[in-house]
């Protein structure tokens, strides 16, 4: 039976309709899926695709610059090359390691260890010089690349090194200002983006990779690099002349507490931290304590004068230069007889000062020593500060009062002593010393400004004036003659402290610390300076080793700061002409 044409046509139309419907449904499914992927999931899809074709690495961005008070850069960054590798895309690792070992001067075994890692990114050598980077580039090794990242430089090398500190390989502050102001100095993170080919190898050119993040804040110090240089030069010369173990010169503006110079020896080059021992990194002017010796008499004298137990012309019997206390004898250099209190200070009489301290009494002396900031931190903006050593009177021996009056049985940091003497210079205010004056962000807005901050007032202006006069006599006629300047009045005090030998449990007869602390011009002080020479070998007295350093530093700094002498120089000019 032959099929009916009408039936065939109907069947064909039916199949066609089914096919069309199927296609329509299929097409609708595809369109829906496309809509879902391209519109609804568009962002996620794009991100997934981007991640497949790119590799991002976070590196540190530029740390903030550190400048001195005149804007001269003391710490800054320069982008330097680092060698990276994608071990997954390197076929012959041994050959690559061998070639790189010669170019980078890194042991092959170390490179093999890095290249053996199952990672798509490893550092091979960081922050190298341009010539080494060029040598690596010329090798054109597959899977090995050069990446630029910031490196911290200290252009003035050893200048101010102990105060600045240094930053580590990942640009994190590790010592000094770099550590103390880490939160300001560290910038945001930089994202370095690599493009990858179909096999996951990184292919993008170097220049366009870096997306810069926010830079760290700029820090302005109170330090003047010229004053710093003068202090370091004179300290170096003194150490060389006396063959001393080390030394410290601190220069402060006594009216504000702002530090102008911070010289410490021995020191290190923060550009080559691995070359020096960690002992050299220490900021000894805040971390280390020493017995101040006779420089401490400034504080004892201030206390006695403030309490009225002595006056400049009060007579004190110094006897034949010896005084027995608690089974020991306190010595003077020569016979004294009856001397005034001003002569006690002028000739640094131990007997006279002990008697003044006895008149004051242990509780009152202790109270003043605390008021001058001993036994507590100065709160200077530097890390690792020591509070020094000042025992409670309940723990004193029968000799302690006498010892303290001569600067023994007390441990002070150089910054503590200078801050205390600055209080005499500024009319009696114990200020908080500081080294950072301002912090600026990358947009040029000031985010921090230090103001003068007084902690307390240990003595009155009258006492400060009287004591300044006595300290001027020390320099004019007493032990501090070598600190004197022809054009300016200098007030100060010498100190020669025996070093306590921990092994022998006694004061060393050969090791001393020679020091001088003072301020200039005495009538309107602009500079307070402390000089400490640690264990000089050729000569020991503070008046011989440290006072000349004070004179040389203050002479040059006053000139640099254009501070005119009291009587000007006009008459002298007339005389010369």
């Amino acid at each position, binding site marked *: 039976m032959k099929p009916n044409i009408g039936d065939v046509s109907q069947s064909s139309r039916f199949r066609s309709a089914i096919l069309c419907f199927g296609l329509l449904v299929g097409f609708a499914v595809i369109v829906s899926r496309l809509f879902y992927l391209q519109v609804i999931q568009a962002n996620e899809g794009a991100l997934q695709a981007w991640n497949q074709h790119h590799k991002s690495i976070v590196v540190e961005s530029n740390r903030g610059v550190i400048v001195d008070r005149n804007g001269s850069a003391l710490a800054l960054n*320069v982008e330097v090359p680092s060698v990276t590798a994608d071990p997954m895309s390197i076929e012959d690792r041994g050959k690559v390691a061998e070639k790189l070992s010669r170019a980078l001067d890194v042991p092959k075994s170390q490179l093999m260890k890095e290249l053996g890692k199952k990672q798509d990114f490893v550092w091979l050598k960081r922050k190298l010089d341009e010539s080494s980077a060029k040598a690596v580039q010329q090798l054109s090794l597959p899977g090995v690349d050069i990446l630029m990242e910031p490196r911290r430089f200290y*252009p*003035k*090398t050893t200048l101010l090194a102990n105060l600045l500190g240094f930053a580590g390989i990942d640009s994190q502050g590790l010592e000094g200002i770099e550590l103390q102001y880490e939160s300001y100095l560290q910038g945001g993170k930089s994202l370095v983006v690599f493009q990858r080919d179909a096999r996951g190898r990184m292919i993008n050119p170097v220049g366009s990779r870096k997306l810069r993040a926010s830079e760290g804040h700029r820090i302005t110090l109170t330090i003047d690099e010229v004053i710093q240089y003068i202090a370091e030069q004179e300290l170096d010369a003194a150490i060389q002349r006396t063959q001393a173990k080390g030394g410290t010169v601190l220069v402060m503006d006594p009216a504000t507490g702002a530090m102008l110079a911070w010289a410490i020896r021995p020191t290190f080059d923060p550009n080559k931290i691995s070359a020096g021992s960690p002992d050299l990194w220490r900021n000894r002017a805040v971390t280390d304590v020493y017995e101040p010796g006779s420089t401490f008499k400034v504080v004892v004298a201030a206390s006695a004068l403030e309490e009225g137990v002595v006056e400049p012309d009060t007579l004190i019997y110094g006897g034949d230069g010896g005084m027995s206390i608690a089974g020991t004898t306190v010595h003077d250099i020569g016979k004294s007889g009856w001397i005034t209190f001003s002569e006690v200070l002028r000739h640094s009489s131990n007997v006279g000062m002990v008697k003044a301290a006895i008149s004051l009494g242990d*509780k009152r002396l202790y109270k003043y020593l605390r008021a001058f900031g001993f036994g507590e931190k100065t709160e200077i903006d530097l890390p690792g500060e020591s509070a020094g050593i000042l025992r409670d009177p309940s723990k004193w021996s029968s000799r302690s009062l006498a010892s303290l009056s001569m600067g023994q049985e007390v441990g002070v940091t150089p910054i503590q002593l200078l801050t205390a003497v600055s209080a005499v210079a500024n*009319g009696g205010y114990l200020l908080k010393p500081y080294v950072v004056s301002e912090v600026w962000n990358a947009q040029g807005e000031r985010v921090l400004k230090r103001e003068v901050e007084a902690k*307390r007032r240990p003595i009155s202006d009258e006492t400060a004036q009287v004591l300044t006069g006595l300290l001027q006599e020390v320099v004019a006629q007493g032990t501090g003659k070598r600190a004197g300047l022809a054009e300016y009045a200098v007030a100060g005090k010498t100190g020669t402290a025996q070093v306590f030998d921990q092994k022998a449990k006694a004061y060393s007869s050969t090791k001393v610390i020679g020091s001088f602390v003072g301020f200039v011009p005495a009538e309107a002080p602009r500079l307070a300076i402390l000089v400490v020479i640690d264990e000089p070998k050729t000569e020991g007295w503070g008046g011989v080793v440290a006072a000349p350093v004070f004179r040389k530093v203050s002479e040059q700094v006053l000139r640099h700061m254009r501070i*005119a002498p009291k009587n000007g120089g006009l008459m002298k000019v007339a005389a010369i002409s």
Partner: protein
Amino acid sequence: MRRSGFTMMVLFFGIIGSLYVWMRIDLLRVSSDIERLNDQRVELEHRQEVLHLQLSQLTAPQKIAQAAKRQLNLEMPQPGQIVMVASDTAMASNEKRLKNAVQLAQRLNVTPHRSTY
């Protein structure tokens, strides 16, 4: 009439197409220029950093002192070779500082630490 309309339509789409292609090519060219300039900026910034470092190194007081001694045969003045001349500016500065110190004392209003024993 019908042919003329067809020609106009082809012409219209041709112009639109050409404009689109021209725009895409120009976009690529501008992108390439931006990329090149960006690279140049990065390079110049790096150069600036290096020059800044060199400037800081060369202006270090120790470098200047060395150059003054070795190249110019200069020496530090001996005592008596320097004459200080009183300047009005310096005097005014000293007076200003003293005034500031008085203001500071008044603001702090801290009394001396006299003992009550």
